[in-house]
């Protein structure tokens, strides 16, 4: 009898352990981060979460930025879709919400959301429901190589207006220095010029009016003027030779190699210019400077307005409940402080920006805190189709195959056609 009992117990024990083995959940986490130093920390965060939540495994998957955007719609409809995905919020998020492929995180965010920067949470709110957890913010502006600027006789801290910028370009060109490097093959780096000009020219009212189709929409005066001002710059041929064939990582790496004086950058390029440069060191901290996008005469926007990104994580429909927990763990004060200490991002968790070690990133964090109108990247904000048309049109402007009128009209046409 005793033997039998023992055997039965052993069998039950086996069954139980077997049960706990099958209860193992795997979270598939799809990201687009290319900086190995940052990915290393992310991996550690994942391992840490696994240790705290036995039975949960996190599988990191990677896709390159452009490939990710192209494949996402297909990936999201597969049964084998990842549980946590990267997002820039905006119109693309709206399309995903309308399609019903992302999970409503409002209940999971209850209470927790007050710890995050309100503007970032708002960006991930669609029709009153929160669909994502923002983890980083960024600003678009000019990142410059001080040494090359000095060689061209330009003081970066004095570039305040659009004319100042045009002057700087002329001086740099005269000194035989490539003024601006840009990843034109990816198109979106070029759309920053046009959209940033629109932010300066029209401010928030200008963009909102265009969305409502007022004042001629995106073919209206603000956007026409953006194109014209952009063309003033393009006519100076400020970009590196062959800029339409450069992908963004190449361009950022080229800046890191000291081949151009300026790059219209997302603030996070501060880090990627090091990782993508040939010597993996890039431009050193004391040789790098930042100035905000110049103001334009008669612009209705406030000089403190910013263009930039708000990045976060979405949980896809049907993902295990641990997914939301992990995303919250990822955007916890400890992790946010750690990433801030490495200067990888401007954190969204309140107070975590105190951890930012470099003055460069602290400056960005202050700019974002001051900003009353933070415009999300147009190519994300306007949705997958119109956003891409903005990229196309601005690239053609830069390549000289479209006039400002044609560019603005093509965007307005696409906007009217809808997605």
């Amino acid at each position, binding site marked *: 009898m005793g033997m039998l009992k023992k055997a039965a117990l052993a069998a039950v024990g086996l069954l139980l352990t077997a049960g706990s083995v099958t209860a193992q959940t795997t979270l598939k986490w799809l990201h687009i981060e290319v900086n190995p130093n940052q990915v290393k920390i992310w991996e550690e965060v994942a391992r840490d979460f696994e240790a705290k939540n036995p039975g949960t495994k996190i599988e990191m998957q990677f896709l390159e930025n452009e490939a990710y955007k192209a494949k996402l*719609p297909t990936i999201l*409809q597969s049964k084998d879709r990842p549980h946590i995905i990267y997002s820039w919020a905006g119109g693309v998020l709206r*399309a995903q919400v309308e399609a*019903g492929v992302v999970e409503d995180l409002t209940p999971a965010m209850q209470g927790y959301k007050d710890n995050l920067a309100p503007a970032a949470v708002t960006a991930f709110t669609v029709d009153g429901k929160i669909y994502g957890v923002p983890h980083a913010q960024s600003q678009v502006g000019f990142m410059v190589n001080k040494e090359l600027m000095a060689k061209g006789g330009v003081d970066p801290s004095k570039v305040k207006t659009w004319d100042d910028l045009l002057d700087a370009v002329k001086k740099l060109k005269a000194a035989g220095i490539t003024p601006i490097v840009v990843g034109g093959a990816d198109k979106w780096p070029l759309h920053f010029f046009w959209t940033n000009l629109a932010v300066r020219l029209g401010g928030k009212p200008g963009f909102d009016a265009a969305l409502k189709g007022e004042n001629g929409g995106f073919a209206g005066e603000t956007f026409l003027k953006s194109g014209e001002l952009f063309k003033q710059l393009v006519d100076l041929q400020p970009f590196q*030779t062959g800029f*339409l064939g*450069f992908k963004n990582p190449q361009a950022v790496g080229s800046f890191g190699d000291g081949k151009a004086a300026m790059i219209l950058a997302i603030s996070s390029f501060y880090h990627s210019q090091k990782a993508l440069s040939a010597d993996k060191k890039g431009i050193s901290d004391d040789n790098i400077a930042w100035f905000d996008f110049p103001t334009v005469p008669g612009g209705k926007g406030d000089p403190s307005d910013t263009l930039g990104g708000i990045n976060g994580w979405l949980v896809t429909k049907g993902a295990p409940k641990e997914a939301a927990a992990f995303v919250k763990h990822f955007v916890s004060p400890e992790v946010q402080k750690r990433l801030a200490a490495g200067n990888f991002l401007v954190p969204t968790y309140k107070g975590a920006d105190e951890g930012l070690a470099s003055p460069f990133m602290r400056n960005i964090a202050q700019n974002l805190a001051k900003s009353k109108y933070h415009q999300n990247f147009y190519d994300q904000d306007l949705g*997958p189709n119109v956003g891409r048309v903005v990229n196309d049109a601005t690239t053609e402007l830069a390549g000289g195959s479209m006039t400002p009128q044609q560019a603005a009209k093509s965007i307005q046409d696409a906007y009217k056609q809808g997605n």
Partner: protein
Amino acid sequence: MTALAARRPLQSGKLTAILLFLPPALLLFSIFVVLPILEAAWYSGFNWNGFGTPKNWIGLDNYRFVFETRAFGLAFRNNMLIIAVSLLVQLPLALTLAILLAERFRGAVVLRMLFFMPYILAEIATGLIFSFVYDGEYGLLAAIWRIFGAEAPHLLASPQTSMLAILIVIVWKYFGFHMMLFIAALQGLDRNLIEAARIDGASRSQTIRYVIIPLLYPTIRLSAFFAVVGSLQLFDLVMPLTRGGPADSSQTMVSFLYTFGVTRMRVGFGSAVGVILFVICVTFAFTYKRWFMRDE
């Protein structure tokens, strides 16, 4: 009676064969070929982003949008350009080399292998290799240019030269395949005819012009057919090289479909492009078969 009785088992044998062997092929063909084509035709009537089920029926509007897009015109022009270059440059080149290398001489086999090699290489790999070759800063071409003390052009970065750069890669990659087709055909030729021509006093060029090439007509027609169909479907070489850019100057119809349909989540629009491409291919295939390949 006996004849009928003898025929019956034969017929039922045929029937069994049909019942046994036709369904799998028919099933596969319908699931993977016929059904998707019909589906694409159906989707092309909707404004649909690919999520859920299509609801917003817009009739033929997608086709109108396609024809109104400037990039589609460029893509169509580029496809025609690729076909022209395939037929007028690649084919004669392959034929000439085939006639030279079909002879038995030392090194002929090695040369054949060498010329055939690019064809074996995967398209994406070829594209990546050439994007390095063409790179205006670090590329092979730039290095050669520098020897002569000149600043290298960024071929892939200019709307004027991007298509030229791609055409060079296409010819480089596929001429070996067509050359092999011709060599195989040449080796199957009746040597007696060529010898007879020689005995009759025909010069080498006369033999080629009046004997060999006419005998190769069936193969030339086949090679041209492959070249045209391949040109219409060109996609995977373009993506790593230029992604259809700059300013859509190197878009092909398939890369157009991908960039404007798939990546922009406009499944209806993309389907319309697919249907247009399908109609072009089918029309071509049938007319070509009817006009040029009647005898085969």
